[in-house]
């Protein structure tokens, strides 16, 4: 399978990339890791006339804590999350997630920014970023703007990124003490999209009362989804079995899975409930260890 013809440029700066976007408008697509875009182009589901390869642009690949945020450059490869010291020490949720994203070769190419900018509710980082209440930095010739993750996803393959803009960074508020996070997705085999996935981050005070809860769901809604009622069920409470059960129940009721080859709707709701409870328990374990 070979993509339809297109023209290609690999600019060396964001300014050049913006000017190419200006020229080509919505006929252009940004090429980062290419592991969502190129398969779609090979299947002719997508036929952009112009590809702007951003891989030669410096300053888009980093993982660092700065000004109270964990900053992840949009071009950061999934494989780089797996080996990052700061991720290993403080953000195990990314190790949970990356291990289950496709396979090692794909993770060598695929980028964190691309995983989000693709706007697919089946991708894993959107739910993780919801649990962590990330902000997305979007750049254009006019400057930068920051969009909360809850306002980023508009619909299937549609996001807040406009045709003249490029997603350049993801910012995650550095969590306080006694915080734990975890992610798991049920997949039929390596490389499959999630039957369902659940991302959880929790903070506890000295008495074990929950002060923060973030819960994101993968592939059980047309757009990446926050389990808001589950979060509310946890904040302000000690997290006993009854509370955790309630949060799991709410998540399973509030999601909107569709029946497909990965399972019917009821099955997926049951998976969401089980995974939500498990990830809450894992996050508590990590917060208190």
């Amino acid at each position, binding site marked *: *399978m*070979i*993509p*339809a*013809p*297109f*023209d*290609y440029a*690999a600019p060396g700066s964001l300014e050049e990339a913006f000017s190419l976007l200006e020229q080509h408008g919505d006929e252009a697509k940004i*090429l980062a890791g*290419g*592991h969502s875009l*190129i*398969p779609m*182009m*090979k299947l002719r589901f997508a036929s952009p006339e112009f*590809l702007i*390869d951003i*891989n030669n642009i410096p300053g888009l690949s980093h993982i660092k804590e700065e000004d109270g945020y964990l900053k992840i450059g949009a071009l950061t490869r999934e*494989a780089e999350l797996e080996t990052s010291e700061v991720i290993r020490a403080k953000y195990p949720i990314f190790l949970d997630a990356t*291990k289950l994203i*496709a*396979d*090692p*070769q*794909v993770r*060598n*190419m695929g980028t964190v920014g691309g995983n989000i900018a693709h706007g697919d509710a089946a991708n894993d980082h959107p739910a993780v970023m919801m649990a962590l209440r990330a902000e997305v930095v979007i750049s254009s010739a006019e400057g930068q703007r920051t969009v909360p993750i809850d306002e980023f996803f508009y619909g299937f393959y549609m996001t807040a990124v406009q045709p003249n803009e490029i997603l350049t960074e993801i910012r995650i508020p550095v969590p306080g003490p006694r915080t734990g996070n975890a992610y798991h997705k049920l997949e039929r085999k*390596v*490389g499959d999209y999630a039957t369902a996935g659940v991302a959880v981050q929790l903070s506890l005070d000295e008495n074990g009362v929950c002060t923060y809860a973030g819960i994101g769901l993968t592939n059980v809604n047309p757009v990446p989804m926050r389990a808001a009622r589950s979060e509310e069920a946890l904040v302000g409470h000690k997290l006993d079995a009854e509370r955790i059960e309630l949060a799991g129940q709410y998540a399973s009721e509030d999601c909107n899975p569709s029946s497909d080859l990965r399972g019917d709707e009821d099955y997926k709701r049951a998976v969401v409930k089980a995974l939500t409870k498990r990830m809450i328990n894992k996050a508590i374990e990590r917060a208190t260890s």
Partner: protein
Amino acid sequence: MKKQITISVNGEKHTLEVEPRELLVHVIREKLRLTGTHIGCDTTSCGACTVLLNGKSIKSCTVLAVQADGKEVSTVEGLATAEGLHPLQEGFKENHGLHCGFCTPGMLMRAKELLEHNPNPTEEEIRWGIAGNLCRCTGYNNIVKAIQYASAKMQGKETPSTEPEFV
């Protein structure tokens, strides 16, 4: 519009004219005639087309040739040297790590990067490490053994028994 690219393949520089839509695997196989790199599924699943791009294993059916401009590509043809087979090739031979051989070039190139990052992987790390490479013949057990054999050999350790396992 064609683009001129320069890629180094197994240490040899090539300057080529390619269409932006040409896939790296097609350039490797059809323009450079290095047919050791296979096309299996053509959908980023099977790993038969795995090569190293600047030392990192990638699936060359999902990378454009223009993306490799200025980079180093390593294929299975570059593994063996005048001194003989690469320890991984020797491991696959000794351990019956292949039947039909279609997946083998991709397995070898993926295993090469795996052992560079993690010279002494556990069995579980090997299995996760080759999760992006499908084999329809061996049931994987002898491939895992082959990689363990290469790991030992490359560290100058005694190589494990090469008694093949049939499952």
